[in-house]
């Protein structure tokens, strides 16, 4: 550590001898303003495609407002991300239903299967935007344990369905057997 101290001391003393305070201030100001304006330049933002999502899952974020988004593989309903909420949060004025339809989807970014919970948001009349009915791995009504055509708002305070979220619960041990 003392070597680092000595190196840094030498550096500061040297710069104190060479550079005037005004010169330092003007340069420092330049760095501050330049640093702040750099992200405004029109450069391709390819790196953003591989950010980590708000619930910590890596991969191309894709567009959660589109039905093709990987997490929507077993969804049946209006996407909350088109309805004033997001794919993990309900729009204001609605309540997330505690009971929910659950399935697995494969994330193309890492090739892993994730358990997805399609919690419905309840309490306002249906959203009507971005209807998405992919239902992969769903089964007809007589297989009630793999059917999602029931009103999951049954567990919430008000039973009016508004829209659906797609929340990652955990990574799955295997894809859902019905797929």
């Amino acid at each position, binding site marked *: 550590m003392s070597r680092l101290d000595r190196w840094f001391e030498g550096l500061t003393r040297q710069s104190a001898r060479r550079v005037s305070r005004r010169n330092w201030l003007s340069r420092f100001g330049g760095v501050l303003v330049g640093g702040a304006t750099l992200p405004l330049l029109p450069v391709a933002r390819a790196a953003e495609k591989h950010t980590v999502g708000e*619930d*910590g*899952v*890596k991969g191309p974020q894709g567009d959660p407002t589109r039905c093709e988004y990987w997490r929507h593989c077993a969804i049946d309903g209006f996407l909350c991300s088109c309805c004033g909420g997001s794919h993990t949060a309900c729009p204001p004025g609605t309540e997330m239903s*505690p*009971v*929910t*339809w*659950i*399935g*697995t989807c494969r994330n193309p970014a890492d090739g892993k299967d*994730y*358990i997805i*919970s399609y919690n419905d948001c309840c309490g306002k009349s249906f959203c009507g935007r971005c209807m998405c009915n992919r239902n992969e791995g769903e089964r007809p009504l007589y*297989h*009630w*344990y*793999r059917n999602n055509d029931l009103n999951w708002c*049954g*567990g919430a305070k008000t039973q009016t369905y508004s829209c659906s979220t797609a929340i*990652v*619960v*955990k*990574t*799955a*041990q*295997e894809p*859902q*057997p*019905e797929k």
Partner: protein
Amino acid sequence: MRPLIAGALFLLVSGTAAADSYEEHDYILSCSGCHRMDGSGSKVVPSLQGLQELAGKPGAREYVIRVPGTAQAPLSDERLAAMMNWLMQRFTGKAPKPLYSTKEVGRLRSTPLRDPIAERKRILNAER
């Protein structure tokens, strides 16, 4: 250097948790949608915390396999037996004795209960 390593470890661990076992995976995929992750249920679904007062009573061992949700779960006898052993340990604090075997679960689920609520009442009232 140490805080740096600790930070890196934290980032590594704080990623999305993986289902720890096939038992937990099966619980999340086939049960937790209605019984919820913590087993607390809702106004339309019974709480799994209720297993505490049921476990150990005569008939309870058969009852928990014959209820419609268990008997008709889309799992093989083997996976269902393993999941129920895990589930009883988790919600009652004690594993079933003896543990459910594939054969026992296969036999019990072949005769699902027509009226689980009546059977539950019968089990709970039998001891009084």
